[in-house]
């Protein structure tokens, strides 16, 4: 049986752990709020952007843009894995990685060549021994800079336009609410033109267009693509903080339970020591009497 001193040390370390997990939970909660705010702003931007595209393309043939152009047959795939850089967030990354492994198994027979780009350390660590990873963008998933996202999106666009890959998929965690994140794999290139034209009732006005309609639409669609990547990163990060919040909440709860358990054990050990001492004193006195 451990001594009282050992119990005390254990309790102290438990109390410290609890303090830490609680702080991490609060930090995640505040970061989640910030990201929520950004998501709302990003949605405002998207509404204006898609509105613009819809109004402009009301009269133009929308299959003319290279990012919208589907290629047959599809031979080469590129998958972008978005994961977090840091751990301690429950099954957040593991669920996604498991899903991607299954997806890869399924796709391997059908397509000639599958390439991977990682965004986030966790995904990179999981796949670096299994697949040729073209590039890993670290730190992108934590710092939300539209221009930094643009650099990655530009690389993807180039890979697609130059014919290095025929379809681009993106794997990320979809954020439902702070308690549930669902891993998802989506096709991002070619862009489905239905996504761009989901705003009904758009009518072409007599716009003065500068430069021409084609060029305008080209740069608008490109910006839309950048925005999509940016929003996916935001969503993934919201999921990460949500998952960490839940995981840390559970850890705090667990630490509280353990503290209660160990306090009982320590009290019992203390009582045992007192009883033992008493017995020694009494038996000593008895021995003297005789």
């Amino acid at each position, binding site marked *: 049986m451990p001594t009282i001193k050992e119990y005390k040390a254990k309790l102290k370390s438990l109390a410290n752990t609890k303090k830490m997990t609680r702080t991490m939970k609060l930090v995640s909660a505040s970061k989640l709020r910030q990201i929520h705010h*950004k998501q709302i*702003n*990003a949605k*405002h*931007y998207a509404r*204006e*952007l898609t509105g*613009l595209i819809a*109004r*402009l393309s009301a009269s133009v043939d929308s299959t003319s843009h290279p990012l919208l152009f589907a290629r047959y047959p599809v031979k080469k795939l590129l998958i972008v894995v978005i994961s977090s850089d840091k751990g301690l967030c429950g099954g957040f990354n593991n669920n996604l990685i498991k899903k991607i492994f299954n997806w890869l198994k399924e796709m391997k027979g059908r397509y000639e060549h599958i390439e991977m780009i990682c965004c986030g350390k966790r995904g990179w660590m999981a796949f670096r021994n299994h697949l040729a990873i073209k590039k890993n963008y670290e730190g992108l998933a934590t710092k*939300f*800079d*539209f*221009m930094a996202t*643009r650099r990655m999106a530009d690389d993807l666009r180039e890979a697609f336009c130059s014919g290095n890959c025929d379809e681009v998929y993106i794997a990320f965690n979809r954020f439902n609410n702070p308690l549930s994140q669902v891993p998802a794999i989506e096709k991002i290139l070619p862009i489905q033109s239905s996504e761009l034209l989901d705003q009904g009732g758009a009518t072409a*006005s*007599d*716009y*003065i*267009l*500068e*430069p021409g309609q084609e*060029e*305008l639409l080209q*740069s*608008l669609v490109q*910006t839309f693509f*950048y*925005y999509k990547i*940016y929003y996916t990163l935001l969503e993934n990060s919201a999921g990460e903080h949500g998952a960490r919040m839940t995981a840390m909440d559970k850890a705090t709860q667990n630490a509280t339970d353990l503290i209660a358990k160990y306090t009982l054990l320590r009290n019992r050990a203390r009582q045992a020591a007192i009883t033992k001492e008493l017995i020694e004193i009494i038996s000593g006195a008895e021995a003297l009497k005789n």
Partner: protein
Amino acid sequence: MQKSFFLNILIPEKTLYKGSAESITVPGEIGYLGILAEHAPLMTTLVPGKIVVRGEKDSNAVFHSKGKGFLEVLKNKVTVLLETIEEKSDPSY
């Protein structure tokens, strides 16, 4: 009093300006262009540069656009979509 129009300036991270304004000057691809109320419908791309907004009651707002952008004028409503701006505000304004 000068006529005003509704202006909305956005970047993906946040809304920079929302409200009525009297004029706006933006960097177009072939030079700066100024827009007043009741401008004809226009859609154009923007290049990096200075965007000057004159709001109501002579209040000025200046943004330094660093990336590409889009401008749309439709029915006295002006929407400016930018990629990013320089956060540091110019001390001369």
